[in-house]
Every structure is written in structure tokens, then in C-alpha cells.
């Protein structure tokens, strides 16, 4: 398009761009506002956080964050981290060979296996909850982080396999073929050739596992009480706060949300692919 031809229309285009941008910004800020408000409430004093009308302008203080962190919150955060990283590691250990056997050297009926796996992800937890609880009780694994690691692995493994597989299918065929001609065994092929090439896939998988495990609540609240309780359980203590602890609650909620929020923001591209099990790239 030449400059001369564009000029008469350009003002109209600019106006509509500004109008649509304004609308987009209003909506995005409205959606983001509760997240921002959570952080702001955490930076207030308790009277400010529960004031009528709400305090809009205030001098921020890190007091609440300090108080939450210096008292009883850290053990919950550590438990969350243990359950999250433990289960993510287990998903990768079990999932990488499985994805390999469903993509690069596929077993027969790979498709049936894939659909079986994903069906377990969407089986209601009602299906296995009671027996798992009884089993954990009999094995003295209630309120033990190990039980959460096992369960979170189960939740994330099917997603992880689908996702890792979608990355493996993208590898150039010749590369794997060449290694095979050189007589590389399956273990060597997976460890030395496939693994280094799908590091983005491993990152995306870890991110999705992190989100689901870190934010998980149902099993955490039913299978743990104190020793192994994770960060969402700490927030349960605020349910009947009645206005006395809003600022502290907000500080704890912000801290609990931060790891997943940051990870998701940094890896937005992987996020879409991960959430759709590799279907949308």
C-alpha cells in the first residue's frame, strides 16, 4: 500500500484501533483486578483491609507478608513444594519411556492405550477416592506427603504422556532413523537422542504438572491434617476469619499463588499446548 493511498483511511483505522484497544484494556483489567486486589489487600494493615468503605489509597506495608512467613506458613509451602516436585519428577520418569513407546517405536494399538490413559484423567475422583483413603489409612500414609505424591502423579501422568508424545512426534524422523542404523539400543536412543531434543516438551509438561499439583485441594484437604498439609490447607484456617485477618489472608493467598502465576506467565506458549494435551500448538 502506498503512503499516499493510505492517508485518507489511516485516521479512521487509528480511531477504531484506539477504541478496540480501550475496550480490550477495560476487560483485561476487570478480569485481572481480583488478582491485583489480593496483592493490594496483603500490603495493607488489618484495619485498612476490613474498612468500610474499602481503603483505596494507603501506604503499602510488608508487615503481613513478614508475619505470615515468620510464623506457621513456611512448612505448608515446603509440603506443597515436596508434593509438586516429587510428583512431577515421577511423571517424567514414568512418562518419558511411555511416550516413547507410543510415538517413536510405537506398540500395537497405541491409540487404544492413549485413549485409555486420558479416560483415567477424567474419571471422577469419586471412582477411586474411598478405596485410596482406606488404603492410605491402613498403610499409615494419611497425613503423609508420600500419599499426595502418588495421587498427584496419577492425576498428571496421562496428561504428561500425551504432551510428551506430541513433542516426540515432531522430531525429524531421519534423526532417530540414523541412530537406529548406527545400532543404538532403545535405551540409548531415548536417553541420548530423544531426550535432549525434547527439552521444550519436558518444560511444558513440568509446567502443567506444577500447576495442577500446586493448586490441588480435594485430596490435600482429605488426606492430610497437619504434618503433610499443603499451602491451600493453610488458607482453610481463614474460612471463618470474620474480618480480623483479611490482610494476613491476602498476604498468604498471594504467596501461595505466586509460584504458579509466575511460572504460567513466563511460559505462556507452553501453557496452551499443555492444557490441551498437545492438541493446540
Amino acid at each position, binding site marked *: 500500500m502506498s503512503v499516499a493511498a493510505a492517508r485518507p483511511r489511516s485516521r479512521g483505522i487509528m480511531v477504531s484501533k484506539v477504541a478496540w484497544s480501550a475496550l480490550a484494556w477495560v476487560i483485561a483489567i476487570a478480569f485481572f483486578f481480583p488478582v491485583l*486486589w489480593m496483592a493490594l489487600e496483603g500490603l495493607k494493615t488489618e484495619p485498612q483491609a476490613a474498612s468500610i468503605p474499602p481503603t483505596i489509597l494507603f501506604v503499602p506495608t510488608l508487615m503481613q507478608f513478614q508475619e505470615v512467613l515468620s510464623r506457621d506458613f513456611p512448612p505448608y509451602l515446603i509440603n506443597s513444594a515436596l508434593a509438586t516436585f516429587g510428583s512431577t519428577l515421577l511423571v517424567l520418569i514414568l512418562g518419558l519411556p511411555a511416550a516413547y513407546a507410543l510415538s517413536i517405536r510405537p*506398540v500395537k494399538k497405541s491409540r487404544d492405550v492413549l485413549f485409555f490413559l486420558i479416560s483415567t484423567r477424567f474419571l471422577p475422583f469419586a471412582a477411586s477416592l474411598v478405596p485410596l483413603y482406606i488404603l492410605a489409612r491402613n498403610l499409615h500414609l494419611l497425613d503423609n506427603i508420600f500419599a499426595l505424591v502418588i495421587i498427584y502423579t496419577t492425576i498428571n*501422568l496421562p496428561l504428561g504422556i500425551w504432551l510428551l508424545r506430541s513433542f516426540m512426534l515432531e522430531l525429524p524422523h531421519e534423526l532417530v532413523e540414523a541412530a537406529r542404523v548406527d545400532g543404538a539400543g532403545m535405551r540409548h536412543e531415548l536417553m541420548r537422542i530423544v531426550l535432549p531434543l525434547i527439552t521444550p516438551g519436558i518444560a511444558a509438561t513440568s509446567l502443567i504438572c506444577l500447576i495442577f499439583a500446586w493448586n490441588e485441594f480435594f485430596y490435600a484437604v482429605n488426606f492430610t491434617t497437619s504434618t503433610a498439609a499443603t499451602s491451600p490447607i493453610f488458607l482453610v484456617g481463614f474460612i471463618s476469619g470474620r474480618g480480623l485477618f483479611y490482610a494476613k489472608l491476602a498476604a498468604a493467598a498471594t504467596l501461595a499463588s505466586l509460584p504458579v502465576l509466575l511460572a504460567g506467565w513466563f511460559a505462556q506458549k507452553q501453557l496452551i499446548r499443555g492444557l490441551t494435551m498437545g492438541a493446540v500448538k
Partner: protein
Amino acid sequence: MARVTLKPSTDVALAGGGARVGPSASSARRDGWRRRLPLLPALIYVILVTQIPFVLTIFYSLQDWNLLRPEPARFTGLQNYAVVLSDPSVRIAVWNTVVLTICAVAISVVFGIGIALLLNRDVFGKGVLRTLMIGPFLVMPTAAALMWKDTLLNPLTGLVNYVLGPIGLGRVDWINQFPMASIVGIEVWRWTPFMMLIVLAGLQSQNQEVLEAARVDGARALQMFRYITLPFIRPFVELGALLGSLFIVQSFDVIFMTTQGGPGEATTNLPFLLYLVAFQGFDIGKASAIGVVAVILTMIVATFALRTLFTIFHVEARR
């Protein structure tokens, strides 16, 4: 480029499997097992933790067994099912689950499409807008639910009533007066970004030349949306709605943190009822029967869901 590829690609499977038939049947079998070996640990793990417990759930559902009572479990046949199916609480919970899921998914899909269309236009600060938009999905749901209840929807100190005050809506106790609408609202807030991400990925993979050609041919914006864009993003929308409903059917954290299933049973969905029966009443038999009923209901929904998945698969195969 975004693309829906929900296909466990069979071409690779056929090529790999066909070329590797060994000279004798026994070596082919050996090769088959060698291929299966890396898959086995994961498969066995999944079967152990999901399938065997499910069989046990069915077994427990046929027993009269309460952990709070000293008597051991006793076989009672289908009695738990008779109790569960005639229990009004169960019917209410099924109804609430359906209402919550359909409303939350439908609204967040519509919002998601709208916002995705907006962000797909030439607007300022696209990257920042998308970053802000996905915030609600990433925040810990328990944390978000408490913040909504205590600082936004609170009848006295909440920001929502403060903002709505000037137009005469300042005295509403949202969570107690409109419990289900409040839960749906929080879920919509959380899942709209999810739908938006998927639809936006679809829009960005749309062929610009087709749109340009239609524009040159004099198609109006609405026509282009109706006949070109909408059919193109349909599989993405279906995928989003499908995944979203599978997650929202199971929603528990928001209800636990805001309404505790109440007032009365107004927001008790199946997961919350199961929680009450299993972990407040410790009625193992009844909880298991509810579990089996929930699985059957989910299977009905999942059948439709899987059909959608296969449609996407066929569309992809024809391309």
C-alpha cells in the same frame, strides 16, 4: 502456528509396526514385548492407582460399612443404591452439578470467544493484555475463592457492593442471597481465560489470505465471522468446552471455601456431597455407591465428549 491435532497419529504407528516384522513369528513377538517394555511401568501404575480402586469402590458399595461404628463391614447387596437413588440430597446434588457445569461452561465459552476475537484484532499491548487475562486461571483456586468471598463479595466491606452502591445495589449479600450465581460467577471468572487461550490460538492459525479474499469480494464483517471464522474455530471451541466441563464437573475448592455447599443444599454438587458422606459421615458403603453413580453419569457425558474428540480426529484426517 496453532493447529488442532488430536490424533494419535496412526500413520507413524503403521509405518513403524509394519516395517519391523521379523523373519520369524517368535522374534516378532520378542520385538513386540521389547516395544511394550518402556510403556509398562506407566501403564501398570495407572491401572494400580485408578482401575483397581474403582473395582474396590464397586465392592464397597455393596457393603454396610461405617468407619465410625465398631461393627465390621457387612454385605448388603444393592441396599446402598436403594438409599442413594431415593435420597433427595443426591438428586439435588446431581441437579446442582448439571446447572453449575452447563452455566459456567456456556458463559465462559461465550466470553472466551468474545475476548479472543478482541485480542486477535490490531490492539495496543497484546502481550500485556494476554498476560493480565490469564491471571485468574493461574491463581490458586482456594485463594481466589476466599478473596472473592471476604474482600469482593462481602456484604459490608466488599468492593463489589462499594462500586455498585451508587446505583442502589449496595446491600446485597451475594453469597447467601445468590449462592449458585456467585459460584458460577467465580468459575466463569476462572475459566474464561482458559477458553480465550484456546480460541485465540485457533484464531491466530487462521489463513489470512482467505479472509483477505473474502474482504475483496465484498463480504461484510458479520458474514465473514459467521461463514469463515466461526466454522474454522469450531473445533477449538469444542475442545475448550469439553475440557472445561470435565474440570468444572469436579469443582470442589470454590464451593468448599465460599458456601460449604449451602445455604441448605443450594450449592452442594456431587463432589461436595461425596466429601460430606465420606469424610464427615464416614459412611464408606454409601459414599462408594455415590461414587459409582457419579462414574455412570460421567460416562454418559464422556461418551458425548469422546464423540466430539473423534469428530475432530476425522476432520483432521480428511485434511
